[in-house]
Each structure stands twice: as structure tokens, then as C-alpha cells.
């Protein structure tokens, strides 16, 4: 019996969705707008997060080691740095490797390769590249390096010829602030957008059900139980959500494609289209489930109003 009832409720929901074509269409359109708002703020915030993380990864402190330093002295220094809690990684780039990388980076630039050949010797120093766990920690690491006399540049026992943190300091600090700011703003915008979308959707579905309020009254007088009357409306709400979320996802492809070039200019490797395609499953699940939840909950609450009396 329960199964028959569920089957009837689902069927009634589908039939009503189809027969109330114009109402369904407008509800779906409004939900597309709502879901589009939710999805775009989520995707943009997440995308910015990824893009900024990429940038964050590019921040580091380069310690240029004196050419006279022995390999073991450099390794000692590397170990010392690794004991600092703020330090995530320390990478040692030997003079040879630095030269190889420099050459491959400029292989198309004949003037540079020619110049290198003319010098004959390897002009590049060995480097220790230090990455911190958080952008804000670079200052601390830099201070540590300055206060240790055997590390600081110019000291008699130092093997360090130069630390480049100070050169990048302003840029690094500005970027740290920007990352925090964007994350905060993104969170606030997402929350506001989600709130607005829920309200818009709820009101649209409430209007759609308001149109059917007399029908609800008739159903009750004929002897329909509350669950049996409410069921098809909830199914209809779920259908609005499903159709709207599929259309939203379809809409996103050309839009991210169109934005591809713009976003690539800013962030190098990652672009919006790439992000959308790479995270499609996750985005699909978020959009579809929020569509279903929005439709179902709105319908449930909207019908409740007409089912309160005996």
C-alpha cells in the first residue's frame, strides 16, 4: 500500500509539473537565477582560492649561497632551517642545476645562451629556497636569518651571500593581505547570495502553490490526508530544482568558456573553464543537491500553510 501511495504521489507530481506548464516554466527560470547565483559565487570563490594558492606557492625566500661554501656546510644550513616550525620545505638547488634550469628557461633566447657560452664559467650561485607554511611567516623566517650571524650576509663566517626576502617583502605582504581579504569577502558574498536565492525561490514556489490553494481545499474535502496532498507538490518542487540545476550547469559551460581568456590573463595556468571542467563532479553534486533541497523544502513549507486547519 505504501509503495502504491508513493508511486501515485510521484506520478501526480510529474503530471502536475507537465500540465501546469507555464507555472512550472516560470518557477524553473527563477530557480535557474537562484542556482546560478549560488553556483557562480561558490565557483568564483573556490577558483580565486585555488588561483591565490598557486600564487602563494610562488612566494619563497631565496638564500643565495656563497660560491666558496662546501656542500656539507650548505646541507648543515638546510638542516638548521628545517628545524624551524614555520618552515614547510627547504629546497637545495645546486649551481649546476641552477644553470640547467636557467638554460632551459631561455633556450629560445640566443643572446642569453650566447652570453653564457662566452663567460664559460657558471655564473649562478647555489640557492636554498625556503617555503613557509603561511605567507605571514616569511617575516619571522627572515628575521631569524638576519639575527644569526653565521647566516647573515657579510659576516666573516657566513656562507650566505644574499637573502632576497627584503626585495619581495612589500609584494609578499600585500599578497597575504589580499588572500585573506578575498577569502573573507567571498564568504560574505556567498552567504548573502545563498540567502537571497533561498528567499526568491521560496516566494516563487509559494506563489505557484497559492494558485493551487483551492485545489488543496478540495483535496481535503474529498478525504485526502495531509501527506497525500503535500506529496505531489514536493515532487513538483524537486522537479523544478532538478530541471533548473541541469539547465544552470549547461549554461555554465559557454560562460566559463567565454571567460576563459579573461581569467587566464590574471592567473596564468588555471582558468575558469579548466577549473569548471576539472571540478565538474563536485560542482554538479552541489548544484543538483541544492536545487532539489530548495525545491523540496520550499514546497513543503508553502503547502503547510494550507494544511493547518482540520
Amino acid at each position, binding site marked *: 500500500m505504501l509503495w502504491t501511495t508513493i508511486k501515485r504521489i510521484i506520478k501526480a507530481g510529474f*503530471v502536475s509539473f507537465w500540465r501546469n506548464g507555464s507555472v512550472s516554466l516560470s518557477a524553473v527560470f527563477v530557480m535557474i537565477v537562484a542556482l546560478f547565483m549560488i553556483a557562480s559565487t561558490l565557483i568564483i570563490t573556490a577558483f580565486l582560492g585555488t588561483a591565490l594558492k598557486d600564487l602563494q606557492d610562488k612566494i619563497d625566500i631565496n638564500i643565495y649561497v656563497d660560491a666558496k661554501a662546501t656542500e656539507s656546510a650548505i646541507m648543515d644550513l638546510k638542516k638548521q632551517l628545517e628545524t624551524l616550525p614555520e618552515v614547510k620545505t627547504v629546497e637545495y638547488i645546486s649551481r649546476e642545476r641552477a644553470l640547467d634550469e636557467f638554460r632551459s628557461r631561455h633556450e629560445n633566447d640566443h643572446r642569453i645562451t650566447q652570453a653564457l657560452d662566452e663567460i664559460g664559467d657558471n655564473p649562478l650561485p647555489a640557492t636554498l629556497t625556503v617555503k613557509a607554511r603561511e605567507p605571514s611567516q616569511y617575516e619571522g623566517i627572515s628575521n631569524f636569518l638576519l639575527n644569526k650571524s653565521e647566516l647573515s650576509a657579510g659576516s666573516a663566517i657566513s656562507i650566505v651571500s644574499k637573502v632576497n626576502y627584503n626585495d619581495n617583502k612589500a609584494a609578499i605582504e600585500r599578497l597575504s593581505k589580499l588572500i585573506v581579504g578575498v577569502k573573507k569577502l567571498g564568504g560574505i558574498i556567498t552567504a548573502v547570495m545563498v540567502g537571497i536565492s533561498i528567499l526568491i525561490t521560496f516566494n516563487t514556489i509559494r506563489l505557484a502553490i497559492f494558485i493551487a490553494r*483551492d485545489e488543496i*481545499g*478540495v*483535496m481535503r474535502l*474529498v*478525504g485526502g*490526508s495531509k501527506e497525500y496532498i503535500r506529496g505531489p507538490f514536493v515532487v513538483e518542487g524537486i522537479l523544478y530544482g532538478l530541471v533548473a540545476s541541469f539547465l544552470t550547469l549547461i549554461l555554465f559551460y559557454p560562460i566559463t568558456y567565454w571567460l576563459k581568456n579573461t581569467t587566464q590573463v590574471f592567473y596564468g595556468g588555471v582558468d575558469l573553464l579548466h577549473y569548471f571542467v576539472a571540478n565538474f563532479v563536485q560542482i554538479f553534486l552541489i548544484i543538483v543537491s541544492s536545487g532539489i533541497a530548495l525545491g523540496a523544502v520550499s514546497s513543503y513549507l508553502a503547502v503547510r500553510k494550507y494544511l493547518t*486547519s*482540520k
Partner: protein
Amino acid sequence: MIYFDNVSKSYPDGTVALNGVTLSVKQGEFVSIVGHSGAGKTTLVKLLLGEDSATDGSVSFDSVDIQKVKAHDMPELRRRIGIIFQDFRLLPNKTAYENVAFAMEVAGKTEEEIASDVPHVLELVDLSQKMWNFPRQLSGGELQRVAIARAIVNHPDLIIADEPTGNLDPINTYEIVQILKKINDMGTTVILTTHNKGVVEALGKRVITMDHGKIIRDDSTGKYAL
């Protein structure tokens, strides 16, 4: 079967719709309730359906006090009462067949029962040809016959017809009354509210006359006395 015990109903604005009405209807009776607009006919019907509750007194159906029925059990009670309205109140997005089938679905009937009973009932009200039409494609008389089919399909103990002929021409009115009479002949109790003199006199059954919320006459083979 139905018992109104000293029932009064007044609204917060001071309107008195019913004033100390006592009335009983036996199983298998055909009772017409007549009176001007505002006499209290529709209020009587609403109390019987549990749509509204009395300010004073009690209304019982088969010894069950309707006002004490819990919201959860109300649908069960309503399935035992078939109801027909002046404005038909069909579901606009369902065909004639589906409107009738809906009443059976809510009563938990099986698909087989629905498939066999619905066409049968629609044939009884002479609508076999228009089974798959939507309400907007039917005339007033046809709509009312669908409503009657819906009301009788679950074999209710009681049919309440609230001004069923109010929106119909004389020929359709005659047909609807004949159908109600037929239903009553098969043993179902019928309560009919109307202000159509011709209908009441043609029936020759019990007539209750109401005025200003009170019963002023109750004749066993009454006439329209207003």
C-alpha cells in the same frame, strides 16, 4: 445517523449563523434544507464536514462527535461523506476520469478497483464519452455530474449536496435531481440544500426550512414555504 444537538455558531464579528439548531437525520433519508441566503444552510454543511466548529452544542455523525475528531482522523471521516458543491470544485488540471479516481486514490483503493469502478460511475452519470476531458472542456451540467460521480464512487454513507443546481439551467437541474434521487433510492442518505422551489416540490420528500439561523419548519413531505 446525523444529530445536531442545540447547535449555535457565531463569528467573532458578532454574526450569528446558527442559533440553537436541533435536528436529526435517519439512515436512508432524503432531506432538503431550504432558506434564503444567510439562513445558515451552508454553515450547517460546514459543521457536518468538520470544516468549521460550533460555538455551542454538538454535531454527531454515526454517534461520533465531529468536533472531537482529531485532525489526523478527519480524512477518514470525510471519505464516508460524498460532497457536491454549487461551484463543482473539480481539480482543474485533472480529467473527469482522474477527478473521480482521485477520490478513490485517497481512500487507498487499488489500481484494479479504480480501473473498474471509475468508468462504471461515469457511465451512471452519462459521461462515458467525456471521461478524458478536462473540466474546462465540460459544460456546467457535465461538471456537476463529474462532481456527483466523484461523490458516490466510494459508496459513502451520506451525500451532501450544497446548492448543486445553483449554477445550472432547468434541464440540467432536473437531471441532477433525478440522479440524487436515484442515489437515495439505492440507500444512501442525501442532504440537499437549495433555494429552488421547483426542485423541492418535485421531490416530495422531507423539507427543513431555515431562517436567520433557526429551523422554522420541518415537514415530512413538505413544500417550499418561504
